[in-house]
């Protein structure tokens, strides 16, 4: 493909070996910009932002889903926030609050809210009407209905929202390195600035691996936390091979 062979032309070594070299260089594992420190930073940003976003989004989603009030507003503003460009948001926040961590975390929280909100709301929406009706007909009060019936049944979707939020957070935290945030994004941006392919690729591998590992862990948690009966019901609803027409 012509003259341009991307990064590879620099050292002439293959990309796998370059990543290997980078990872096997002990210098990259030490100190404040070593892999463990960056990894922990990244996880910390994701964790803090997730907790904050959950504290805001879950109660809001439960309120709207349970009462049905403000649903249009919620869906509309959720979509608007999703459309916010990550980079624009973090640069804007940085100029407003010139402190990398604070600005970046606010940005992360803002972007993690829509998926959690959507998951919570969709979860409550998915509770069958007749089940809600039966709960009410048996004399459950609002909060009893919410905690004993609606929340347990909507748990899979709610946790699905959290999974999405975590993926979003891992990705956004990498972008936020642009405004001076630490974390794995540093490898990507710093490596890019000096065209150190090993570093860039290592950063990409680390971020992706982190995303996948967190997703798998959460998927497992989702399974664990989903009430058994709900799991069976979901499986029963899925069309079996029998019903599928050739």
């Amino acid at each position: 493909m012509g003259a341009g062979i991307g990064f590879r032309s620099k050292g002439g070594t293959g990309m796998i070996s370059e990543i290997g070299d980078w990872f096997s260089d002990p210098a990259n594992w030490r100190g404040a910009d070593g892999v463990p420190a960056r990894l922990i930073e990244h996880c910390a940003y994701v964790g803090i932002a997730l907790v904050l976003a959950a504290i805001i989004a879950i109660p809001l989603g439960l309120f709207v889903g349970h009462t049905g009030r403000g649903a249009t507003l919620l869906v509309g503003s959720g979509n608007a926030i999703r459309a916010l460009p990550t980079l624009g948001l973090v640069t804007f926040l940085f100029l407003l609050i010139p402190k990398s961590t604070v600005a970046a975390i606010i940005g992360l929280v803002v972007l993690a809210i829509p998926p959690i909100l959507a998951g919570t709301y969709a979860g409550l929406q998915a509770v069958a009407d007749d089940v809600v009706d039966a709960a009410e007909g048996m004399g459950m009060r609002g909060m009893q209905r919410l905690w004993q019936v609606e929340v347990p049944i909507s748990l899979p979707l709610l946790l699905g929202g959290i999974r999405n939020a975590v993926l979003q957070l891992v990705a956004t935290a990498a972008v936020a390195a642009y405004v001076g945030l630490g974390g794995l994004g540093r490898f990507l941006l710093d490596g890019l600035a000096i065209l150190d392919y090993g570093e860039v690729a290592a950063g990409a591998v680390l971020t992706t691996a982190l995303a996948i590992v967190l997703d798998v862990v959460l998927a497992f948690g989702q399974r664990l936390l989903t009430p058994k009966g709900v799991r069976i019901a979901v499986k029963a609803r899925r069309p079996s091979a029998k019903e599928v027409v050739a």
Partner: protein
Amino acid sequence: GNPLEGGAEGGAGGDIVIGASDVGESLLLAEIYAGALRNAGADNVTVRPPVGGREVVVQALRDRSLTLVPDYSGNLLRYFDDDNEATTPEAVYTELRKVLPEQFEVLDQAPAQNTDVLVVREDLADKGIRTISDLAPRCEQLTFGGPGQWADRWKAKIKQLYDCEFAAITVTDTGGPVTVAALRSGEVQVADLFSTSATIGANGFVPLDDDKNMFPAQNIVPLVAKGALSQRESDALDALSAVLTTDKLTELNVQYSERKRNPLDIAEDFLRDNGLS
């Protein structure tokens, strides 16, 4: 730029794609080059959005994604020849032409310089620190902020020349707002900025004198993919470089980052005021 000409091929008489590094004034210089070339009759001149550091730009020139970039003589020399010790403008330029790989050429360098400079806040400067040598004894208590590649390039050098080893080196950005904000807030106490940067004055930072000439001369020089420009176009850039002085560059920077004018507007004014249009 025009979306339909994503990766334009450079070449004499062909399209000219001017790149810029992510140093603030780089884009401004790129626009001025573009203006000068257009005035010299080149059509199809485009300026790409800034990207990365020298490594990226050089790579892009090599694969002809770019035709031309404004660069700094000293850093360019170090890039191609790590151990070269030349520091004066003339020596640097001569050495540079020697080590430049054959795909590239440099046109005349401008008198304007924009070197790396270490700056501190006034409160630290008031303790009698005016040069890097003054700073050296305190290095161990200080946190330094600079671009990601700074440590690679200068950490050993500053230790060797000045016996200065910072307590920590924090990655901020390349003389940009993150660095400025970090220094302003005291997160770092020493930072790497650029000598012509308008933010130094605007924030009352104090630039430290590089008394042992660690940083080489950094004259502005156009780096070109060899054979990509016609003679007429090269001449136009040489003429431009001839009038570009450090004072003018500093003023251009003020226009750009403090007065926040559009780089094209600044370029137009500059070319007109200097009789290049």
